[in-house]
């Protein structure tokens, strides 16, 4: 390694600087503010009172918090797997010539554009026991015994919400996969066909390896989305009920912050959640992005 008197190349740093500045000011500073407040008892209004680690010990001893963490993990894993498998399959179909290709590509994307208010009304009515579409359909095909308390049975409600989340974001992930698949050079497939590899073999040996970085993006987005931004969808669908069966970390943290006026505990729980996501996020990143040719 030559250190010597070589001038430091500022260009890469300058390129990173705007992002670092913005990010530090509006994400990291508030984050440290939250971390700092997690050592205080604070209702959001009156003078904060320093209580050391009490918010953390209260959170750790809060069984509802751990229940919500458990739901968050189930939710995150289900959503990530289902979204990615379905989106991949849809993209795999839509990347080739099918009738009404553009129409399908646009149509399946539409739920992404819908507001959560509409989703809340729509899906709770789709699941409705008296006039809901699902139960009407099951009655129509004579499968009344399949009718369940979609949103009212504590054993099922979480899965019903997962379905809505998958439905909402499927189109987005499909588009990302489509973009990735479009970018794979046709030459690979031609060469494979000449070698006599069939569709399935091509999928395993060409499409999936070539899509590695797209898969990383998609998995990370759905995983962290389920940890850090599933508040809206759970809130409009069930608000955490019935009997806390759909309570996820974010709904519980927001309840603590704004309904129970316990900002300190909410911040402590956010920090615990962050620690979990941090560990999982980095493990996932390390496993999945080892081999993209650039050292990071």
């Amino acid at each position, binding site marked *: 390694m030559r250190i010597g008197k070589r001038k430091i190349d500022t260009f890469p740093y300058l390129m990173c600087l705007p992002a670092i500045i913005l990010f530090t000011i509006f994400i990291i500073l*508030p984050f440290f503010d939250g971390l700092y407040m997690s050592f205080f008892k604070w209702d959001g209004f009156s003078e904060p009172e320093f209580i050391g680690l009490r918010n953390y010990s209260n959170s750790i001893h809060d069984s509802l918090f751990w229940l919500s963490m458990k739901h968050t993990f189930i939710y995150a894993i289900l959503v990530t797997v289902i979204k990615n498998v379905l989106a991949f399959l849809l993209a795999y179909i839509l990347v080739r010539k099918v009738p009404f290709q553009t129409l399908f590509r646009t149509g399946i994307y539409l739920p992404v554009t819908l507001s959560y*208010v509409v989703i809340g009304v729509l899906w709770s009515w789709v699941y409705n026991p008296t006039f809901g579409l699902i139960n009407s359909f099951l009655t129509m095909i004579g499968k009344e015994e399949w009718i369940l308390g979609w949103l009212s049975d504590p054993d099922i409600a979480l899965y019903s919400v997962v379905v809505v989340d998958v439905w909402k974001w499927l189109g987005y992930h499909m588009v990302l996969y489509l973009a990735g698949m479009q970018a794979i050079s046709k030459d690979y497939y031609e060469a494979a066909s000449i070698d006599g590899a069939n569709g399935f073999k091509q999928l395993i040996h060409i499409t999936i390896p070539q899509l590695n970085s797209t898969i990383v993006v998609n998995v990370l987005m759905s995983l962290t989305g389920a940890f850090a931004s599933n508040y809206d969808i759970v809130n409009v669908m069930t608000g955490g009920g019935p009997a806390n069966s759909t309570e996820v970390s*974010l709904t519980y943290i927001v309840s603590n912050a704004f309904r129970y006026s316990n900002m300190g505990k909410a911040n402590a729980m956010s920090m615990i959640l962050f620690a979990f996501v941090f560990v999982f996020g980095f493990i996932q990143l390390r496993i999945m992005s080892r081999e993209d040719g650039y050292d990071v």
Partner: protein
Amino acid sequence: MTFKTRRTLWKCLWTFILLIFFVISVYPVVWMFFGSLKDTNEFYTNIWGFSTNPSWSNYAKAWNNAALGEKLINNIIVTVGSLLVLIPVNSFASYAIARLKFKGKRWIYMYLLLGIMIPTGVLGIPTFTVALNMGLNNSHLGLILVYAAQSIAMGVFIMRSFFVTLPKALEEAAIVDGCTRFGSFVKIILPLAKAGVVTQVIFNGLTIWNEYFMANIMITSQHLQTLPLAIANFTGQHTTDYPVLFAALSIATLPVIVIYVICQKSFIEGVAAGAVKG
């Protein structure tokens, strides 16, 4: 079974699967639109069907009651403004991280990635405090910078993944052509990562277009309100006027759909053009 009939069968199966997904994706949007044409009684009695007596009065009501025209312009300012900030910021950083060698690169990347793991929604009040101290509360610029900052982690991550797939020799070729490094980035590399840029536009654009929480905290003046704030007018303490709400939401959703349709075309072309043999 001949190869040809098998192929046709497969094609039918695909089309059928697509059709199912198409219907469950498109119907809700159509349903929202139908709902906006119903009166309150019909909204609750004829739930799934088309309005028997469609009326546009809900649109007039939504438009006038919430001054949607003004809010629409505000929303465009904030969304476009945020994109104008976040696209260059994210592209610069991710380019450096993906393709340049420098000390501390790994740490910078890890640092920015932290943003993916921070639940920003919970930190609304601290974010407001920071903006307040900088004098950025109750301004579009404040919202724009906050939105841009919130997009950085994911944006850098996505853009980087597009940059790393490009062939390694590109910059060298550009420098031979006589470009500076920044010039080669803007003229040669960035166009090849157009798909990444469009991905950010459709994702962040959409998130920002519908963002309510931060906007509600940061904006205090009526004339600076964005669209989601105006739409919240229709959600009451105990009751919600759904037909009017749906009319307002239809107005808010239409531009997004149009932009997606336009983007989608250039997106797919862009990707095809950027598909360089590696």
